[in-house]
């Protein structure tokens, strides 16, 4: 290394930890996402997520770097759809069906009032229609943008915006109602 030298040569940005990093970052949230889509079936969710990461290994990192999460969620969602299709289900969500997964208790130590309000919010979210829940979680739990959610779910951006607005205003109304 010469003193004062600058590495001006474009180098191969290799990432031996590419899959590694993706697994570390996304396996848990992806598992949660898949479990919800599969209506709580954690075992099948693990298989689906396993399969998703195996497919990730087949992707050249350069093609996917920077939108790994979106890719993972999209592939995972499609895998779930494949599973449903084999069982004769054509749609991810039955219309009007809300998920009946119980909202788990929030972590201890956050203070009773806060814990109660978080639990209340989680329960309200759990009563939203399943398609609204999915986009709400993708937005506020996984941090995706409208555009990314649109690509993952194959919904239009305006459709995504509509679902999120409807869900948010409903949750706001219900929380305000509960506060009385």
């Amino acid at each position: 290394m010469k003193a004062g030298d600058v590495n001006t040569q474009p180098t191969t940005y290799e990432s031996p930890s590419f899959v590694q990093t993706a697994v570390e970052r996304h396996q848990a949230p992806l598992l949660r996402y898949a479990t919800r889509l599969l209506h709580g079936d954690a075992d099948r969710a693990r298989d689906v997520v396993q399969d998703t990461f195996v497919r990730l290994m087949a992707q050249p990192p350069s093609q996917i770097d920077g939108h790994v999460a979106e890719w993972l969620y999209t592939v995972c969602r499609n895998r779930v759809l494949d599973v449903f299709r084999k069982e004769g289900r054509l749609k991810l969500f039955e219309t009007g069906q809300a998920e009946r997964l119980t909202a788990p208790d929030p972590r201890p130590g956050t203070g009773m009032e806060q814990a109660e309000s978080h639990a209340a919010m989680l329960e309200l979210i759990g009563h939203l229609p399943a398609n609204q829940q999915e986009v709400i979680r993708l937005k506020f739990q996984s941090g995706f943008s409208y555009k990314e959610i649109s690509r993952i779910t194959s919904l239009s951006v305006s459709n995504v915006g509509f679902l999120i607005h409807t869900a948010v205003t409903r949750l706001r109304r219900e929380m305000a109602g509960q506060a009385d």
Partner: protein
Amino acid sequence: MSTSEKISPDDPRLTAYALGEMEPAEHSEFEKLLKQDAAARVFVAEIKRATHRIGVALAREDVPQVGAIRLEQAAIIAGRNFGKLDGGPLRSPEVPNLRRWLAKLFQFPQLYFTISGLAAACFAIGFIIWQANYREQPQMQYTEVDLTKFVPANAENVAEAKTEPEGGQQPASAESAAGVVALENGGNDNAFLAVTSEPLSTFPIKTGAAAYANVRHLIGTGRHPPRGAVRIEELVNYFPYQYAPPETKNVALPFAAHLEVASAPWAPAHRLVRIGLKGREAQKLSVAAAGGPLPPIAKDVKLQVEFNPSQVQAYRLIGYENRMPRKEDFNNDRMDAGEIQAGHTVTALYEVVPAGVEWKPENGADQLKYQTTESSALPPMAKARDGRKVAVSDDLLTLRLHYKEPDGEAGKQMEFPLRDTGRTFDQASADFKFAASVAAFGMILRDSPHKGAATLAHVTEWAQAGLVNDAGGYRKEFVGLVGQAERLAHN
């Protein structure tokens, strides 16, 4: 525009606006509408509060046990019994038993997954080895997608922070502790230190990366990040930089250092030093390596920068206000805190007041004066090491890296001197400009006394100069974030 044109509460644009999801033009247009509609403005504020509470509640939702799937523990483990996976050895053999691996693969209860998995794995071998030789062109097809779980810093949410380091580091868990960020009450920016009294500086080889996502989320939802959330070293290290790994011709050196110096764009009389460290790349990738653990390349790594008093009056480490590594940062049950893995990258920035520039220490202690190398203020190490007097040097600084081999106990050392050739900021590399823009952004958010002449408009300009190397679109997203911050500042 008619004054009776009110926005309906069912208008999805209200939420899109509240979440910062609109393109700049659309955003401005909607803002104009809002100016005429007080009820809608109130509603937007309520929406923001609601989305905040939704985010907080969802962050506390239980996450599946992280141990469920560990590709790095044993290549691809098939079958349902994930509970059998324990921590596993830190270093497993490079090449797993291929037959055993295949046998486990065929234990998949569902043939569909087995076949797709095997096909993908075979594909992977070809692709990954091809990839290892492939010279990558940066591609920007999407804006960056990068997930971290976080809750905006909030007076109520004081809990353990789990950071999410990038690159070759091993994070404790992608989403543990609901990603709540500990609220630190600022911590003042590091002040300039006089070389005469403090010729040696140190910075940790590992940083977290949670701060960037946190800041991004806060700004995206219209909030100004509190100072404690803006950890500049984490912002800078969030982005990938193009550092070549060390040559492996003769000696297997664990690290290569890339040092660059040019004028600091927010204070052109000062020099800005960028120190980049890159660890050795794994040997040629195979399926095993891709699924297996990253090999460690060194342990007990300590970094030290020695500044040359004949060239430097004072220096300031940017970021790292809380320099002692937090327990949470190294709270990793799979790896020693001091162990560094292949491919590890870290970037540190120093702002330097060169000799000949007017400078007064903040505490007003020492007076400005030129140093000769015969001065007793020379660090004892320089004297003891050579046993002779150090000649006048043009070096600005020397970076010293102490380490041990992963299996060894003998301490080793690498040295990287840096000479300042007087480059202006314009002459610096794209990566340098981008890193500087991120640092400046952090300083503005923190309202640092050292931000100099930097403004958000400058940050955008400097960042755009760095957009040439933007594999993954991270940098473009940063430019967008700066734009959002600007709009926030004008509200």
